[in-house]
Structure formats: C-alpha cells, structure tokens
C-alpha cells in the first residue's frame, strides 16, 4: 500500500499538524515580512530562535520516534526524505535566498497569509506558485 494514502484519521492529524505550524508561524511573527527582513539585516535575531526551536523539536521526532515506536500511530512507516548535495541544491538555495531577502516571505508564511488576512502577501504567494511552475517546466526529470 502507498504509505502516503490519506485515510480520514490521517487527514485529521495532518490538518491539526498544519494548524500548529500556521499558529506557530504567526505567534513567532514570521508572517510579517518586516520582521524577517529585520533579521536578515542583523537587527533582530529572533528567527534563529524560531528555526532552532522548530528544528530541535523535529530532531527529537525524526531521531526519537523510529527508535521508540515500531510504526507511526496510524500505521504505515516512518518515512525519510534524504537531501542530496548537488549543483541544483546550491543553485536553487542561492536563488531562494535572493527571493527571500527581497520579499521577506517564504513558502509557509505565504500560505499562512491566507489566514492572517494579509492580502498584500498574495502577490508573493502568486509569485511562488508561478516560480514553482517555471521550475517544473524547465527541468527534465
């Protein structure tokens, strides 16, 4: 069976997990491009705490859960998503950083803007949607 199959209980958990993600982003003011840009200009180091806190929790999950439990609670398997180091990773990340520095917006906060009612950021969301399309159309795989 496809380990990604979306059963109703799994959909519910996914919705709650996404909600925590969106609530956390908003609480941490990462949904405000001005705050992100002030970090990138070395005026406020808060983003380090956000990323550090989130990555710390993620580490606990990715390293701990597969040791403590045989399977995820709703079945399937603990999947991994290995990152690769390639020219594409470097180029893509470099381009992503330029866009992030220019707009103060990254994918999570762009989606969250639909909830915070920040319609200005819909420009960035539209840009991301088109950028992802352009990437897919220009990549052979």
């Amino acid at each position, binding site marked *: 069976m496809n380990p990604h199959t979306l059963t109703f209980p799994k959909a519910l958990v996914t919705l709650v997990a996404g909600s925590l993600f969106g609530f956390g982003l908003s609480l941490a003011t990462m949904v405000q491009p001005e705050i992100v840009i002030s970090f990138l200009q070395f005026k406020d180091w808060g983003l380090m705490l956000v990323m550090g806190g989130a990555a710390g929790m993620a580490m606990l*999950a990715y390293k701990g859960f597969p040791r403590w439990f045989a399977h995820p609670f*709703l079945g399937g398997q603990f999947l991994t998503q290995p990152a690769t180091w390639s020219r594409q990773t470097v180029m893509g990340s470099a381009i992503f950083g330029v866009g992030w520095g220019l707009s103060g917006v990254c994918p999570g906060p762009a989606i969250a803007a639909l909830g915070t009612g920040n319609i200005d950021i819909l420009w960035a969301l539209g840009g991301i949607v088109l950028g992802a399309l352009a990437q897919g159309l220009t990549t052979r795989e």
Partner: protein
Amino acid sequence: MTLSTLFPLGWQHYLLGGLTIGAGVALLYLFNGWVGGMSSVFSSSWSFVSKRAFFQQARFINTRNWRLVYALGVVLGALAWRFALADGQAQHTSVPVWQLLAGGFLVGYGARLGNGCTSGHGICGLGALQLPSLGAVLTFMGTAFLTANLMNLA
C-alpha cells in the same frame, strides 16, 4: 551585548512559536510518518493541472492530497491566531508589490530547484541531521543576508 540588543521585540514569542511549529512537524511524523516541509505543495499541486512528466512523478502524485490538507491546516492555524491573539485584524505589509512578486517568484523557483525551503531544509533537514540541508541553509542564509542588506542600501 544584552538580550534586548539581540531581541529588541523580546524573545519568548520567537521560541514559543518555533516550538509550536516543531510540534506540528513532530505530530505529523508521530501519527502518519510523514516529513512535513512546506514548499513541495507548490509542485505537487501542479500535478492536478499539468500532465507534464515532471509534475506527474510519484513523489508528487502520492503526496499531493495530504500536502494540500497540511497547507489548509496552516491557513486555519494562522486564522486561529488572528482571532485569538490579534483581535481579528487583517495584517498588512509595507514591502513593495514588485519585491513581493519578484521575490516570491524566485522563492518558488529556487525552493523547488533546491528541493526545500526554510522549513524543508531549515527545520526538517536540520532536524534529521542531514549535511546537505545544512549546506542549503547556509547558502540561502548567505544570499538572503546579502540581498536584504543591499536593498537596505538602495
């Protein structure tokens, strides 16, 4: 150097927000076994529309449903924050439209080319102790620092 020079707006909400984001990522893994980066939804959702082989890859087709539900959750979580803690006020930004649009395009193109964004590499990749993700984070932090400071000069 004191806490208030590093964090002029306070530090507690940053840490608490980060831990909450991480709790969402952990919950998705504990119950479903899935790695919840954010930028993939922008490629996987195009598979509903484009028949192009790139978008029809198994990694997008298989995950496109839950990634949309996950994104919907992000919207609901942000909405809950707005009505619980921000008096229901709609937020605004003074970043110029051209920067949002052009920056967004580069964010979408670059995150998908590099297979991850601030959450995919920065939270999930670093959390899984993956060296390539550390390289990706250092790369995008570097170009973002440069860009934001150049914009400040301009």
